[in-house]
């Protein structure tokens, strides 16, 4: 019955928009939270009947019978967690109840879109859900309606449109060849004529489309603006999960289930991955806007995932997916921290801050956990996923890329250390004497995410057996 993951949120939105405005305003947050938590809970139980029982009437109604594998479960889990966090952040940072209600509606829409992306087993459905997510994202970015917000949203809109055109074109070309857009059909078509120029052109277009969606170098131009201009909740959602689902998850799904590996594709993935990783990290080093730095950091981390994917081995893919999940956690955490800092101090300019950990200890310490995880310092979650990616690269013979990944790790550490130095660790800067720690709405998600990061890092042997290794069935 996984299709319920699309229908129930849809119904929830419709229900929320019934009259009784004031009631609904109050209910919206809890409804959203319930949706996210239920999804999280379900994803944590791969054996649950929910995933495996056929959706009889529903299937007939929608003509849709998705198959759920471990990759999807990981994605649902990440979507659920980040969604819940986003709701908390929204609750924390959006004061006006009416606005919050609207935002939560759009958030739920975006979550639904992402669920659809994960569930889709047909290229066209995938496209449709990508668009849902994208539209919801545009709205969320532009939500504050400042100049920056519109600029960010507009850039995302335009480049996304380009991506859409490319994906559509690829769809058309594949349709021509395969006659159907279900994954299975396309896979068969590609397998039967791997050297057909039409197919190859379609693959190239598809790749570029997904690269743009995922914000990989050199298709990343929209990303820093969009992330930094978006309101707190939206940037958590975008950075944590949206681009990862629309860009990276789809890439992984298509490469593994539809296109299949070949040398050229691997070269492409490795190269783009490495370029994103390095350029993202280097660019992050030069930022003084907290969120913009995190945005570049996202580009860099996405590079790791693509690099892992490009290794072309089970281990690499496991690493990529694991890193995707970890990234969802720690990058959300960092954006949560950024939200707290921005809300409390009223600025995002790191050069004006300093020593905030003294006044905001929880934010400070959770940010330490998050950045160490991002930089790949054990025993935190990010270390293990990076380790797996590097091991995979090394074993696949791509030692240079492995070394580059290590180097990028160092750069990651460098820019985060610079961030820590300027924001949290140091003497309290002038003007922040009366700074207060954020309230529970922001501290709870921060702590939960930090605990997840630590927990994954510590519990990796168990997680690796139960959650990660089953992913190998993809290949």
């Amino acid at each position, binding site marked *: 019955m996984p299709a319920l993951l699309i229908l129930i949120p849809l119904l929830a939105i419709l229900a929320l928009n019934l009259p009784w405005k004031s009631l609904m305003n109050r209910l919206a947050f809890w409804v959203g939270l319930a949706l996210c938590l239920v999804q999280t809970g379900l994803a944590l139980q791969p054996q649950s009947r929910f995933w495996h029982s056929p959706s009889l009437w529903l299937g007939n109604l929608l003509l849709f019978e998705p198959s759920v594998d471990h990759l999807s479960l990981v994605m649902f889990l990440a979507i659920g967690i980040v969604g819940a966090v986003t709701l908390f952040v929204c609750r924390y940072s959006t004061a006006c109840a009416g606005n919050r209600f609207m935002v939560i509606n759009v958030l739920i829409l975006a979550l639904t879109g992402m669920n659809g992306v994960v569930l889709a087993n047909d290229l066209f459905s995938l496209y449709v859900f990508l668009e849902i997510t994208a539209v919801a994202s545009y709205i969320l970015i532009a939500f504050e309606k400042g100049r920056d917000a519109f600029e960010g949203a507009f850039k995302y809109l335009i480049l996304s449109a380009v991506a859409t055109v490319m994906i559509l074109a690829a769809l058309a070309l594949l349709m021509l060849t395969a006659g159907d857009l279900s994954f299975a059909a396309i896979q068969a078509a590609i397998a039967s004529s791997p050297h057909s120029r039409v197919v190859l*052109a379609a693959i190239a277009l598809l790749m570029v489309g997904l690269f743009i969606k995922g914000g990989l170098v050199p298709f990343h131009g929209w990303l820093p603006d969009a992330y930094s201009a978006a309101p707190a909740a939206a940037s958590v959602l975008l950075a944590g999960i949206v681009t990862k689902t629309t860009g990276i998850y789809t890439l992984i799904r298509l490469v593994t289930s539809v296109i299949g590996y070949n040398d050229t*594709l691997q070269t492409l993935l490795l190269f783009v991955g490495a370029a994103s990783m390095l350029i993202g990290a280097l660019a992050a080093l030069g930022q003084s806007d907290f969120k913009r730095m995190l945005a570049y950091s996202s580009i860099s981390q996405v590079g790791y995932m693509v690099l892992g994917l490009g290794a072309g081995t089970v281990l690499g893919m496991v690493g990529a997916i694991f890193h995707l999940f970890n990234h969802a956690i720690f990058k959300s955490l960092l954006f949560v921290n950024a939200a707290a800092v921005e809300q409390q101090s009223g600025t995002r300019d790191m050069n004006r801050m300093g020593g905030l950990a003294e006044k905001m200890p929880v934010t400070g310490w959770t940010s330490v956990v998050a950045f160490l995880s991002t930089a790949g310092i054990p025993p935190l979650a990010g270390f293990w996923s990076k380790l797996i990616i590097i091991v995979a690269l090394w074993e696949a013979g791509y030692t240079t890329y492995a070394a580059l990944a290590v180097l990028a790790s160092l750069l990651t550490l460098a820019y985060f250390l610079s961030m820590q130095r300027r924001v949290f660790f140091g003497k309290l800067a002038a003007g922040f004497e009366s700074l207060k720690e954020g309230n529970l709405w922001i501290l709870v998600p921060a702590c939960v995410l930090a605990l997840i990061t630590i927990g994954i890092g510590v519990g990796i042997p168990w997680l690796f057996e139960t959650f990660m290794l089953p992913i190998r069935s993809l290949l």
Partner: protein
Amino acid sequence: MNVRFLLVPILLPIVAGVLALLFRNRQGKACAWFCTAVTATQLAITASFFGQEWNLILPWGAFGWQFALKLTPFSNFILLAAAVFGFLICLYSAAFMNGKRFLNQYYGYFLFTLGLVNGAVLADNLIVLLFFWESLLLTLFGMIVIGHPGAFKTAVKACIISGVADLCLLVGIGMTIYLAGTMTISQIHLPVGGLNSVAFIFLMIGAMAKAGAMPFHSWIPDAAVDAPLPFMALLPGALDKLLGIYFLTRISLDIFVLTPLSWLSPLLMIIGSITILLAVMMALIQKDYKRLLSFHAISQVGYMILGIGTAVPVGIVGGLFHMINNVIYKSGLFLTGGAVEKQAGATDLAKLGGLGTRMPVTFLCFIILAASISGVPPFNGFFSKELVYDGALEAGRTWHVGWTFYAAALLGSFFTAASFLKLGHAAFLGKPNTDPAKVREAPMTMLIPMIIITALCILFGVWNALPLERLIQPILGEHRLEGHTFAGWPASMTLVILTVVVLVGAFLNHLWGAKRSGSGLGAADHIHYAPGLHPLYDRAERRLFDPYEIGLKITNGIARIAWGIDRGIDYLYDTAAVKITYALTNGIRKAHTGSLFAYLSWSLAGLILIIALILGGI
């Protein structure tokens, strides 16, 4: 007696030393008598060891380290000598040091020194030897540093010089153990040559530095000024010589078998000759009682090294005999110096004079001791020097210029005599520079040691068979001596006559010099300010030739290079790496103009490239 009694000479002073440290500063007198009692006991015990040959092995560390002690005639001899001088100097200190600060520390370090020297002498395991030997650095440091508030500079100098030499010894011992395959000294008999010679040189450096030979000497004159005087009599005067020459003999005779034909023998002889000459030349021009003596303490080592370096029996016997003689008269001389310092309140010769009548006993002792060191018959110094001359000539026969060693030694004698004439003249004769009414003869506790030592000088000269046949010749063993005995009047009359001629020459030279300058103090000025020598002396006085200063300059040079390397590496991290990274970062940042159209065109360019790659790559 039980073999374990061997531990007594080591443990007794050390335990007593710890107790001495526990005394309060006010209880200086009690402390002094306590220590005198301890050293007297020590003397009695070591005397009772006489004639025994013991071997004591106790377990110590891992790795086959054993606490092995061995009592041989040689070690017994040194042990006894150390005990005698320890006792005498301690007795002397009781009066001399009275009222000074840090007395408890002084006596504590004093006793430690004795115990450590005993340990080093008794050791039959190289590591045990090294352990005791190097530990002496601590007492050296301690004893100098308590002299006066500024003495630490000298203490540091002494410790650095000795420490460097001791490290060489450490390396040498490591090599020796490796080469010999054992740590037990009495089991090591290595021929010289090849790597063995390297090991020998390292050990030799350690031994010579302890004895105070050049170029490890330069702390001694400084210490003479800064340290308490009994320290000078004890360490550079007595124990250091005993220990250094003891070890030098051991390595030349037992541990390595030095032959006259190996190149190490002339090396030692050269070092010996140079030490004799240079140090005595410096002694000649000193204007301070203690400093003058201290240069002699260096110079005399040269004779010993020269004697042992000959590697012929007569030379070695001469060197060892000279060692014990030197210990006797040099410590005696330092004690007279102490008496003068205590009573007249100065050691600067310009402030002294005419003390002979006020301190007759001291003056008499001084005359005999000075005659001994100058090699005037029939005092002990004469006999040992003759033996060394003999050895130098015998060993020198192998080479064309072998006689130069003898000549150098003889010349050294000349200057020695000259400098002591000057010293005696300036201090005890002439017009008194201080108020004579204030100066009295030294107290009995100071006189007794001086008298005993002076008596020893006469005894060992007149009855030189006692030390030679009883103490020294057994060290070499019958097989080396081949039935010879070196006791009695010197074998070669020619050498004796030459010696006497030189001594007379020195006396005439002194008379001339004193007349020329008008005072005893200026008796050596004609040499001091001789053309050619004057600039050298000048520079030497300014310490330009001090190996320590030169060494520190070299070290500083090394340090500067190292600093440069270190800063250079740091530059790579702190500046270069950061700059490169930020150059890249700034480049990337500049590219991100925020222009949508730029981003669009990147995407299109990317698209073109990717299409080209995917379609071209297949």
